[in-house]
Every structure is written in structure tokens, then in C-alpha cells.
């Protein structure tokens, strides 16, 4: 079995996610080579061949061009698997490659079971074991599902690659994440509100509980998107990463993008009407209750302590 691992480079740096791709290749017992549009002075710690296209020439984001570069590597290597991270770079490029190869793409793989790849289904409430029916298979891996191996100082063999294709999309640089306001990354206690709070007025109840515990309040993305909380309160992959002693998730289902931001919390309490909510997989305590009733009573009792 042979794989091509697609590493990523952004804002002048090679991203760390490639370690998880290598771990996946090792798990399925595959021989691998790596593909990167990057910089020869910042190579991934990888023992093997890296097909490297110069980022100064081909750009950090240029899907048509990156697609062509990768397709040429695939034509030469004839891999069984082409492996991406399920990231903004991976989910953008992978389907382009899958279609060019007329291959199956299995997205957001979390585990391998025999000849099947396991992926989440219905917002993570179910799992699906999927079998590819095509010769080559394109996969994207859920962030954190495969633990990166410790790589001792590695010395990759670099093969420089190039193409003369140009792309239709013009990349004009980056806009930084919104800054300022609260920095939840240092908070010891965080109470977060999810869509389950139902209405904007209920934010006050969450803030009150946070106050009674002597902590800060946070929110899931839908709460921020709806304008019920400021963006700098958002916990998750596109918000803040937090590591408090206590994290109380109120009306939050536990989507992977939210969990990614709070799984380092020491102790997690979830308040949810749904006993099967995925947050229960991670919570130390799942309180099955309507938060509108439970939160005010808890707040009152904490204040009375």
C-alpha cells in the first residue's frame, strides 16, 4: 500500500498537521511520500521523499495550480491513498483531486476498521463505516483523530516540482482574526452558552452562573453568529482555544469544532436536555436538564455557599 500525504503551509510556515498524516500512514501500514507547496528552509520533520513546490512561486493558496502540481506527483507515484487534513486547505483541494482521479473521497476519517474508514454522520451523532469502491481513494482526516508520532530529527529527500498552469482565483492575502476583548485562554472557569439557550436574553443567565463561579462566560459559534455574544467569546477551531479548570457547556451539542477548542479543560460539565448529545462523550458530568430551569437554581445555590 502506498500513500501521498498532503502537508500544508500558511502565513510563511509549515503547519504541524502533517504529523497526524504520517501517523495515519503508519497505522494503515502504508509506504508514504509527502507533497508540500512550501519553503525548502522550513521542511516538515519527515523521513522520506517530499515533493516540494516553491511557495514563493506558486502561492500559499491557488487551488487550480496546487491541484495540477499534486496530480503530477500522483501520476508518478500511483498511490492507493491520497491523504489530506480535514482543514480549510484539505477540504478545498481534496474534491478537486478526487474528481480528476474519478476516485472516492472519504471525508473526516476518525478511525480505520478493517477495510473500512469510519466517519461521523449527522452532526457527529452517528458513525458510518465506509468502503471505497475505487482504485485510488482520497481521504481527509479529522483533526486530532490520529495522534502525531514523535519524529526524531528527520532528513527528508526533497524532489522539487513545478508546473506552468495558472489559476482562475486571485489570492489577495489574509485578514487577521478579530482581536481584543476577553482572552478566555487564561480563564480558570468558563461557562459557555450554546444554541440551546434559545434566546438572546438567556445570555444573562449564563453570565450570572459564570459570575457565581468566579469565572468568565463563553459561547458556541451559532450564539456568536446570531449576535448574542461577541466573537471574542467564541470557543472552538475558529474562535479561542481554552484550558480552564472547569468548563460548563450549557445547551451545546458538542460538535468537533467546538470540542477542539475546549477539550483541554480539566473538568467538563454539560447541561443538555439530550442524553445522547455528543458532548456527553467528553463530559465528566452530563446533567440531563432544561438549562432554563437548572442554571438559575444552580446559580442561586452557589451564591448561597
Amino acid at each position, binding site marked *: 500500500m502506498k500513500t501521498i500525504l498532503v502537508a500544508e503551509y500558511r502565513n510563511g510556515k509549515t503547519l504541524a498537521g502533517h504529523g497526524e498524516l504520517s501517523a495515519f500512514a503508519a497505522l494503515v501500514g502504508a509506504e508514504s511520500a509527502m507533497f508540500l507547496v512550501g519553503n525548502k528552509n522550513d521542511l516538515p520533520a519527515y523521513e522520506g521523499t517530499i515533493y516540494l513546490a516553491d511557495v514563493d512561486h506558486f502561492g500559499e493558496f491557488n487551488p487550480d495550480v496546487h491541484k495540477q502540481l499534486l496530480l503530477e506527483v500522483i501520476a508518478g507515484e500511483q498511490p492507493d491513498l491520497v491523504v489530506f487534513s480535514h482543514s480549510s486547505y484539505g477540504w478545498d483541494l481534496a474534491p478537486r483531486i478526487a474528481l480528476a482521479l474519478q476516485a472516492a473521497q472519504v*471525508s473526516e476519517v476518525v478511525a480505520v476498521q478493517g477495510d473500512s474508514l469510519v466517519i461521523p454522520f449527522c452532526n457527529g451523532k452517528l458513525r458510518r463505516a465506509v468502503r471505497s469502491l475505487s482504485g485510488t481513494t482520497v481521504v481527509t482526516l479529522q483533526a486530532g483523530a490520529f495522534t502525531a508520532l514523535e519524529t526524531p530529527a528527520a532528513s527528508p529527500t526533497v524532489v522539487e516540482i513545478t508546473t506552468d498552469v495558472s489559476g482562475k482565483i486571485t489570492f489577495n492575502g489574509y485578514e487577521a482574526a478579530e482581536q481584543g476583548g476577553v482572552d478566555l485562554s487564561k480563564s480558570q472557569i468558563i461557562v459557555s452558552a450554546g444554541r440551546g439557550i434559545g434566546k438572546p436574553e438567556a445570555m444573562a443567565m449564563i453570565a450570572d452562573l459564570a459570575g457565581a463561579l468566579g469565572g468568565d462566560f463563553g459561547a458556541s459559534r451559532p450564539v456568536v453568529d446570531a449576535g448574542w455574544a461577541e466573537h471574542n467569546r467564541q470557543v472552538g477551531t475558529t474562535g479561542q482555544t481554552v484550558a480552564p479548570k472547569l468548563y460548563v457547556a450549557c445547551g451545546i451539542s458538542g460538535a468537533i469544532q467546538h470540542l477542539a477548542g475546549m477539550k483541554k479543560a480539566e473538568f467538563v460539565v454539560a447541561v443538555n436536555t439530550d442524553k445522547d448529545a455528543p458532548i456527553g462523550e467528553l463530559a465528566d458530568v452530563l446533567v440531563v436538564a432544561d438549562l432554563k430551569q437548572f442554571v438559575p437554581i444552580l446559580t442561586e445555590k452557589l451564591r448561597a455557599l
Partner: protein
Amino acid sequence: MESKFKINAAGTWHETADLAWRMNEYDEYAVEQAVQLKEQVAGADLTVLCIGPERVKETMKKALAMGCDRGFHVADDAAQTKDPLQIAAIIAEYAKGQNFTMIFTGMQSQDRGSAQVGVLVAEMLALPSITTLVGFSYTDGTITAKRELEGGVKGLLTVKAPALCTCQLGLNTPRYPTLPNIMKAKKKELLSVPIQDLLKENARQETARMFFPEKKGGGLVLEGDVADLADRLIRILKEKTTVLA
């Protein structure tokens, strides 16, 4: 789609009875962005397409009430089990030759969640595509877009129409259809064709099994009267954490 799932007897899918169905959240943003563009561009005509069983017509009526001009329904009782490439091929088969200036899809579906269909459609039609859209403007055929990256960073892009965008949460504020618009939507064209007319691709993947995620264990589940639950939780926090010290 929320509610309680039950796995079917064969262990390969879930039962479909007793579930609540609604428009894919990401597609609400796609419909809203398309309607806003239609309002901006004089003479624009907007079609909403959905592949699925009879019940998806309810979702399509919502899109019509939000402002789409016509609906194209591809009737398929087994749509959920089609793979992304098949779904994309059906859409591309319909769209080819129709010269759409813009196609909007969701970034991902909430059930299948593959984040593939939009990009595949664009590739099949040889159109440029921008994924994970969180900002969009359109001037004289040029699209200025923001795509969301990890950590809240955004990539700034421009591309010329025709093009396809896959829409991310928070792109806009999807409107609620008003009663008059719901009434008007009832009179709009909603054409239905059988899937056989458009499906020409075989599946590239199949579902071997469907199951519930393993509970990692260790987690305590508390149920009962809320006041009692609060007391029990406080006791646990005192024992297991230092936050109440």
C-alpha cells in the same frame, strides 16, 4: 436533522420514521446569499435545486418563500445513500448548458458532512470554486470573497463569474419567510423529475455499517429534579475540582 436515531435491522443505516426534518443549516446561508444577489442584480433569476424524497419539497418551499423564483426537485427516495460524487453529478447534469452566473451550495451537509458536493459540481462544470465563504460581494461580474481559515483568520480572494461558492455559517443573516411570501411561494413553479433522468454515475463508495459512537466512559450522567441535580453537582465540584475551594 435532530431527534433520536435508531439503527435499522441491517445495521447499515438509521430508521427514518419519527425524525424531524429541516433545511441544512449551511444551505440557509447559501439561499440567503443567492437571494441577496438576485435583489442586487436587475433581471436575475434564481432556481433552487434539491435531490431527495417528497418531503424535501417542504424545504424547497421555504427557499421559494425566502425569494427563489423556481424550484427543481430531483425525486429520489434513496438520496441520502448516494455518494457525494453522484449527488454532484446530478446537479452538474442539470446545470450544464444553463449558463448559471453563480451557484451557491452549503459548505457541508449536516447529515453526510462530506464538504465535497459544491467543489465537485464546480469541477464537473469547469467553474472556479471558493469554499467556506464568510464574505461575498459582486460587482460587474467580479466576486470579492472571504474564506474562513482556522483560528478565525480569513483568506481574501477575487474571481470572475461564473463561479461557485460553498457557504459557511455566519455568512449572512438568513431571513425568515413572511406570511405573504409564503403564500406567493405556493404559486411558484416547482418541477419534479425522477432521478433516473439525471443520474449517470456509479457510486464510488458504500456504507458498510452505521453505529453510535462509543462513549469514552467515566462520564457521570445525572438525571432527576433540578434542585436535587444542583446539589449533586455542587457536591461533585467540591470533591473533584478546586474551583469551589
